């Protein structure tokens, strides 16, 4: 086949919703964009364990602790599913880690905010996992097979994450005045960063068109953000908490909530590394990687020793 017909074949598969698999021909730009997207997603799952990990030892009950532990463990699993999907595109795990640890790769900015109180565990599960689900469900139909399959597993596991978060918020908001205040404070701090999770507005998102064509993105940032806001505002009512946006108003004509101006300067500032916890997060990851060095070496040495022993026994 000529390059031309390879490309035609690829386009035809996209058109017909036939999945692209690792050994199929694909344009270089598709491969590169996917590696970036999947690895950013994987890094987000891994770094995303840190803000919640901060509260595991201080969870208010054994039940909450077991749940939080299980949730954080799931996020590790999500990171691993996604790293292995990225590796099918021809990049090694070490390279992926290296990109994260050197600061070359990005991860979701939301994880650069601190978790100050227990209510943040509620707000993160409800809002951050909620936004992630909104983003991820359409990706179960993404064009790249291994990515889509990883997303199916991720989405199956995510729904408990959001529900446990909402349950924490519900318990606090029905508790004492201090507890309710704590829940409101968490909502105040996590609301705007959560709706920024969908990324810059469509008119400032130059790659959206190409990514939608490739079916590695199925809705635009603003479409998903609107969907999230519409759903979440109703949920806040159940909690009896108020969403910290004075301009939030139901728009009958649009059939959607109108919302206030998003502070994109803050968003870009955090992306550039100046969020409250960027340095701490990266340092923690680097330390974990470096601290694990001897374990990786010991396991490799042990496996080598066992191989040799079984060779000797066979001889």
């Amino acid at each position, binding site marked *: *086949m000529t390059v031309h017909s390879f490309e035609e074949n690829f386009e035809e598969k996209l058109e017909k919703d036939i999945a692209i*698999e690792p*050994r*199929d*021909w694909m344009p270089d730009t598709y491969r590169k964009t996917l590696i970036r997207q999947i690895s950013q997603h994987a890094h987000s799952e891994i770094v995303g364990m840190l803000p919640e990990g901060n509260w595991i030892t201080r969870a208010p009950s054994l039940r909450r602790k077991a749940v939080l532990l*299980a949730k954080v*463990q*799931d996020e590790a*699993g999500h990171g*691993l*599913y996604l790293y*292995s*999907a990225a*590796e*099918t595109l021809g990049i*090694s*795990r*070490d*390279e992926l880690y290296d990109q994260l640890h050197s600061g070359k790769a990005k991860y979701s900015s939301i994880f650069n905010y601190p978790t100050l109180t227990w209510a943040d565990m509620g707000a993160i599960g409800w809002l951050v996992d909620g936004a992630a689900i909104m983003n991820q469900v359409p990706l179960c139909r993404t064009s790249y097979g*291994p990515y889509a*399959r*990883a997303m199916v*597993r991720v989405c199956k*596991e995510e729904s408990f994450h959001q529900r446990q978060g909402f349950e924490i918020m519900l318990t606090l908001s029905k508790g004492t005045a201090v507890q309710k205040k704590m829940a409101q404070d968490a909502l105040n701090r996590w609301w705007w960063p959560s709706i920024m999770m969908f990324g810059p507005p469509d008119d400032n998102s130059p790659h959206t068109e190409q990514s939608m064509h490739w079916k590695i993105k199925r809705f635009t940032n603003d479409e998903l953000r609107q969907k999230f806001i519409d759903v979440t505002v109703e949920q806040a009512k159940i909690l009896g908490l108020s969403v910290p946006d004075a301009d939030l108003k139901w728009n009958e004509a649009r059939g959607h909530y109108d919302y206030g101006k998003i502070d994109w300067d803050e968003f870009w500032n955090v992306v550039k590394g100046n969020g409250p916890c960027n340095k701490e997060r990266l340092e923690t990851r680097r330390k974990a990687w470096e601290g694990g060095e001897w374990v*990786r*070496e010991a*396991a*490799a040495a*042990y*496996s080598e020793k*066992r*191989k040799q022993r079984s060779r000797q026994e066979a001889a």
Partner: protein
Amino acid sequence: MSQQETEHKSEWPLWEVFIRSKAGLDHKHVGSLHAADAQMAIENARDVYTRRMEGVSIWVVESKYLHTSDPDESASMYEPANDKIYRHPTFYNLPDELKHM
């Protein structure tokens, strides 16, 4: 250079993971992971792929031992089966009154 030569020396090998979700069903490919050896691969597979009782049996195969057909040759590879519809039971015209066949 082969992929193995470019591989980082320190990186644990990659394993493909296959899981039988319940007795009586086939093992099915679920993904891959890194581990120093087969035993560790099985233990990691338990933690990564069966946190919700998704499996009763795990197979792991080091990825480099997996051989696959070439997708670029799919057309000629599977072509011989294309025109043999008589391999399907519906190919045969039989009377309606015929039962249990």
